[in-house]
């Protein structure tokens, strides 16, 4: 890993050398700010930590935009096809010839897109936190964690080696753990961060096994080589991967499914979704960054990265991805209709939208028109990042104002918080798929792709779109309409004093609001597609009508029920009693997990293991100790200090020696 090697690999680029350096700098700036703020933050940067973090992120965001411009418009295309450029490759650990963990930076359409998304949303969250987290006594630590997360996420998207992505995957998990548990004196926050880490770690076990399976058969860990070997129909590695198998499922399918399990854990797909609602215990900007726009899409990104293998060599695994995504989308949408904590509604909404992205990948084929699902999924990722971050940041502003998360404490805030109200409305319209906002375009593409491939999934997606509109507007009306805002106890003067939100909080809201409107018009197929070639997607009016109709119906129902105080919601919930109670309790999935872990794992595995450890292992060690102690006590009795005792033993010894030498002489 010498500088010479780095220089060599940079020089070997077909593109300008400057690109490599700039791209390497993008994750390194947040890393530097993490180290600086982490080590010295408390002492030297207690107040200015936020500025430093924001500055480093501005640098990263600027570099990402420049890289994107360079890649998409200047130098990324060769013969009309976007190339995968390995900008940096440093060999780190070699296990066998060809199988080595390299540290490398890979530029291709989705990674450049993710660079832009991650740095931009992170920058927005950094600016927002200047206002939101003002006055916290661990202010600089917060920014150092945010920088750590940004570094890890950027490393993840730029990884050129499947093991490297695993390393950054775990780092992202650690950052999430640190940030969810930021308020470490709240036991619920601590429990939530533990839950998030343990569930995702458990899923990552599957990921690791999947990596090993794939690497074993493909004899490489590098993404480019891996994909090439496992998609080329004539390669021996592919044959060996398909020929070997367990329980009738080929090794390739196992590997891909296990990798998908890792992705499902991180993306909160069923059944690993349980950590996401609890992760809302963290500060709201954290939820905006990690659990809405960036970390939770890591699973989608992973499937997209390995998409050629999924689509060309293993359609069975792709079907699993599709069904899991669709089921999660529907499941989350149903639950979101009943929740009263606004952040939890948004969390389930995130899970639902990620389900959309997953099944969009699932219905997609590879190459040309078949790859519409891929482009649609990435497009939805892009637009969703914008409006979901906007929703969370707006919710943060509301929480900041009301000092409570519950919908019951809110209402009629549209007069008190005009900017938040407007941007929140824009985001809700976007997520509901109302034209001409961004969500409409991305959702329409997804549904088109689904229609051409699987009608059942199309139907589920359509119904979920309606539910999405319903619960989002339920949320909107409950916060901003419903009734006149009365803060309990009448702290009008206090609230009036700090007003809606400081400028640092309003600025990101406004920027994201504008983006939520305009990003729909980006011709995404020009940039991102499954095989790198430009995909011209047309706008089908007939396909567009159905989701818009469902969306408007949902909005209308929500308007009827929630715009003003009425007992209609109560009557509906009574009428659909069973479903309502089930959805309110999140369909008891948490209870099932608790049951399994407490009654089965703890009692059948945990308790006996603890018993064995305490009694058998400790017992053996103690027995050794007791043996030594008793033995030594016995032996020490010989040292009685009495001369005559010694003399007797002396005599006995001499007699023994004499007998030995005289009668049993050698």
């Amino acid at each position, binding site marked *: 890993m010498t500088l010479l090697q780095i220089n060599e690999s940079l020089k070997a680029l077909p593109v300008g050398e400057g690109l490599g350096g700039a791209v390497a700098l993008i994750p390194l700036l947040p890393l530097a700010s993490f180290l600086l703020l982490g080590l010295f933050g408390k002492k030297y940067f207690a107040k200015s930590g936020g500025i430093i973090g924001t500055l480093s992120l501005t640098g990263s965001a600027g570099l990402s935009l420049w890289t994107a411009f360079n890649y998409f418009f200047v130098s990324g295309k060769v013969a009309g096809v976007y190339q995968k450029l390995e900008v940096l490759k440093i060999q780190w650990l070699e296990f066998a010839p060809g199988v080595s963990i390299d540290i490398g930076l890979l530029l291709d359409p989705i990674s450049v897109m993710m660079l832009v998304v991650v740095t931009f949303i992170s920058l927005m969250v950094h600016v927002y936190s200047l206002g939101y987290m003002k006055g916290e006594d661990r202010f600089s630590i917060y920014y150092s964690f945010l920088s750590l997360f940004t570094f890890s996420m950027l490393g993840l998207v730029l990884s050129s080696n499947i093991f490297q992505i695993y390393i950054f995957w775990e780092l992202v998990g650690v950052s999430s753990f640190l940030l969810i548990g930021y308020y470490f004196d709240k036991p619920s926050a601590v429990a939530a961060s533990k839950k998030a880490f343990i569930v995702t770690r458990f899923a990552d076990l599957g990921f690791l096994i999947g990596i090993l399976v794939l690497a074993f058969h493909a004899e490489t860990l590098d993404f480019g080589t891996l994909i090439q070997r496992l998609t080329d129909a004539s390669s021996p590695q592919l044959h060996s991967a398909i020929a070997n198998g367990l329980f009738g499922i080929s090794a390739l399918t196992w590997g891909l499914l296990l990798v998908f399990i890792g992705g499902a854990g991180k993306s909160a797909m069923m059944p690993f979704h349980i950590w996401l609602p609890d992760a809302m215990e963290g500060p709201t900007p954290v939820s905006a960054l990690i659990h809405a726009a960036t970390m939770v899409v890591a699973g989608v990104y992973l499937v997209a990265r390995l998409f050629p293998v999924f689509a060309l060599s293993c359609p069975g695994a792709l079907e699993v991805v599709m069904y899991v995504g669709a089921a999660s989308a529907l499941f989350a949408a149903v639950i979101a209709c009943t929740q009263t904590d606004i952040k939890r509604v948004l969390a389930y909404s995130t899970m639902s939208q990620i389900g959309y992205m997953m099944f969009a990948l699932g219905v997609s084929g590879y190459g040309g028109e078949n790859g519409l699902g891929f482009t649609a999924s990435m497009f939805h990722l892009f637009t969703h990042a914008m409006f979901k971050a906007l929703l969370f940041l707006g919710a943060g502003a509301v929480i900041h104002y009301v000092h409570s998360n519950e919908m019951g404490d809110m209402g009629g805030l549209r007069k008190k918080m005009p900017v938040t109200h407007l941007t929140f409305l824009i985001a809700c319209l976007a997520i509901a798929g109302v034209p001409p906002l961004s969500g409409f375009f991305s959702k329409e593409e997804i549904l088109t792709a689904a229609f051409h491939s699987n009608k059942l999934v199309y139907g589920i997606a359509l119904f979920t779109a309606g539910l999405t509109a319903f619960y989002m507007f339920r949320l909107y009306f409950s916060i901003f309409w419903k009734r006149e805002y009365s803060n309990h106890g009448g702290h009008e003067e206090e609230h009036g004093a700090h007003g809606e939100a400081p400028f640092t909080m309003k600025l990101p809201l406004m920027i994201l609001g504008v983006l939520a409107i305009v990003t729909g018009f980006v011709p995404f197929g020009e940039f991102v597609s499954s095989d790198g070639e430009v995909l011209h997607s047309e706008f089908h009016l007939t396909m567009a009508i159905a989701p818009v109709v469902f969306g408007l119906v949902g909005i209308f129902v929500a308007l009827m029920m929630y715009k003003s105080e009425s007992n209609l919601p109560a009557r509906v919930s009574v009428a659909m009693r069973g479903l309502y109670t089930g959805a309110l309790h999140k369909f008891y999935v948490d209870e099932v997990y608790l049951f399994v872990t407490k009654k089965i794992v703890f009692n059948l595995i945990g308790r006996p293991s603890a018993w064995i450890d305490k009694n058998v292992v400790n017992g053996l060690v103690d027995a050794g100790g007791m043996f030594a102690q008793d033995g030594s006590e016995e032996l020490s009795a010989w040292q009685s200090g009495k001369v*005559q005792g010694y003399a*007797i033993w002396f005599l006995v010894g001499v007699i023994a020696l004499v007998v030995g030498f005289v009668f049993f002489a050698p």
Partner: protein
Amino acid sequence: MQVGLTQILFLSTALFFIGVYGFLTRRNMITMLMAVELMLNAVNINFIAFNKYLWGGKLDGVFFTIFIIAIAAAEAAVAIAIVINIYRNFGSIDAEDADSLKL
């Protein structure tokens, strides 16, 4: 029976083991010292007997005996000095009481 070397050796062996028995059994330190003197005497008899009956021309056994007597005297003196010291410090010269060196 003609007295020869064997009979004298019988005597010295018996005297020696009487001394051993006394050393192991007695509790007073002075009496232990007396038993030690018995053992030394038995050894002296042994040396003289061997000198007389086996190596008549030489004097080695005689000298051994002379030196043993001299050294026994010195040793008895030192031992008694120590016993007196113990008596002064511990108040008792019982061998059972002198067990400070135990574990």
